[in-house]
């Protein structure tokens, strides 16, 4: 028969060792902010941009190979602009799904707001791949691509960091690419007003989308 208090002590020691091991080793644990955006003083959820920024003055190509001048062809309608890539495992699909779903929830159409996705990964993102990717969210989303210099020029005009290779994708799908994580909102005149960082939830978009349609 084991000594009287051996088992509880052994369990405690084991638990303590496990805690230490879990705390010291490279775990999968990172902090996750899951509570969405806080309301701004004016009621919007998107964060206002204080600087003067316009839709970038660059020409890219749509998925059908037609040239699109971002700074001219998207005037007349508010635009939500996002830089990403189709292999992105988290930020891009979460943002795009949230926008598409929120638009559907509040009855805002793609005639009222342009949602533009610009690829920062020209090597992998072919027009067909971009079209197929965006179909997962909504077929009316606009997919644009261009060479890396043109995309970089667009990012520079918005003072956003350029794409960087961050290392191997843990899913084994090539490299992960670092890119701006925010959606930028431009009014019908092409002037930037607000950004929505990663962490924006549908509940945030349903507040802001009708205001974009009404006020921009």
């Amino acid at each position, binding site marked *: 028969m084991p000594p009287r208090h051996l088992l509880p002590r052994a369990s405690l020691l084991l638990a303590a060792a496990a805690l230490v091991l879990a705390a010291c080793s490279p775990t999968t644990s990172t902090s996750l902010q899951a509570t969405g955006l806080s309301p701004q003083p004016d009621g919007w959820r998107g964060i206002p941009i204080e600087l003067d920024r316009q839709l970038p003055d660059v020409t890219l190509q749509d998925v059908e190979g037609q040239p699109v001048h971002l700074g001219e062809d998207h005037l007349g309608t508010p635009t939500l602009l996002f830089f990403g890539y189709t292999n992105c495992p988290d930020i891009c699909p979460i943002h795009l799904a*949230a926008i598409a779903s929120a638009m559907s929830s509040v009855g805002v159409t793609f005639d009222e707001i342009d949602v533009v996705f610009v690829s920062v990964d020209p090597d992998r993102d072919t027009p067909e791949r971009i079209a197929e990717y965006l179909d997962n969210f909504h077929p009316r989303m606009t997919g644009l691509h261009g060479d890396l210099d043109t995309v970089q020029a667009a990012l520079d005009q918005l003072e956003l960091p350029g794409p960087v290779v961050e290392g191997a994708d843990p899913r084994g799908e090539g490299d992960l690419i670092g890119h701006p994580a925010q959606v930028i909102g431009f009014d019908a005149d092409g002037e930037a007003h607000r950004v929505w960082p990663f962490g924006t939830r549908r509940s945030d978009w349903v507040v802001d989308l009708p205001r974009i349609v009404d006020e921009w």
Partner: protein
Amino acid sequence: MNVAWWCSGTGQVWTWRYTPFLGVWVVAATLIGGYVWSHRRAGQPLDRRRFRRWVLGVLALVVVSEWPIGQIGVGYLATVGIARYVVYTFVAAPLLLAGLPTWLVQRWLPEGSRRQRAVAAVTYWPIALLIFNAVLFGTHLPVTIDTLKTTQLGSFGVDVLHLGAALIWWWPAMRPAHERNAIQEPIRAFYLFASSVLMFVPAAFLTFSPLPLYGLYELAPPLWLGFDPVADQQAAGIVMNVGGGFVLWGIIAVLFLRWAKEREAEDRAARRARDARTLARIAELEGEAERP
């Protein structure tokens, strides 16, 4: 190899790379080791049937807490998260209670001890019903999920609360009739039915909310392209309805039928005894009548 203490919402991209959760194995080893050790210490033989139930209960906890189900349920899919709750509450907890022999309960909770009085207080059925539903509602609030389940300690705490509340809730319904606080039909049927009805409330919120309630699942890297957190949430509501509602109704029906059968058997035995007494009395009277 990555290791962690307990599953939590990490916000990291899902991969099929095994991440052991050491806390799960520590808890499982403590539960099974403690059970065997208690028997040895008391000089009691292991009742195979009870031990099997206890081990199955622990196994249920391990399956839904370890990688991958634990990780997917806490960090990626609300459906699996609710399924974990259903297994903790409706599978693991009753199996663990069914594996506890009365002598062990009496040994752990000596009559008149502070521990026994505390357990008696929380397992009194109206209190147990209140605790169970307070934990059910409290731990499914978006603010609770989004803040506690993003840390290992918080997630562990929520799981401990779920198991603890389930054990308290099942206690009066499952312990033998002669034990303190044990309830029988029709109170037991009402007790279980009331919980099943209350469970429809959070389930309805999950099923009918047009927006994702939990940022944890909405902002987690999607497991597949085109993943819809609202559809996942609706499925989670259905799992809670089926697990907490319909399965519980099945359990209520089984317990009620068993109770009715026992009552019928008792009635039959009482009738037989009465008939036997009547026949004996008749025979006695006939004997007296025949006597000169």
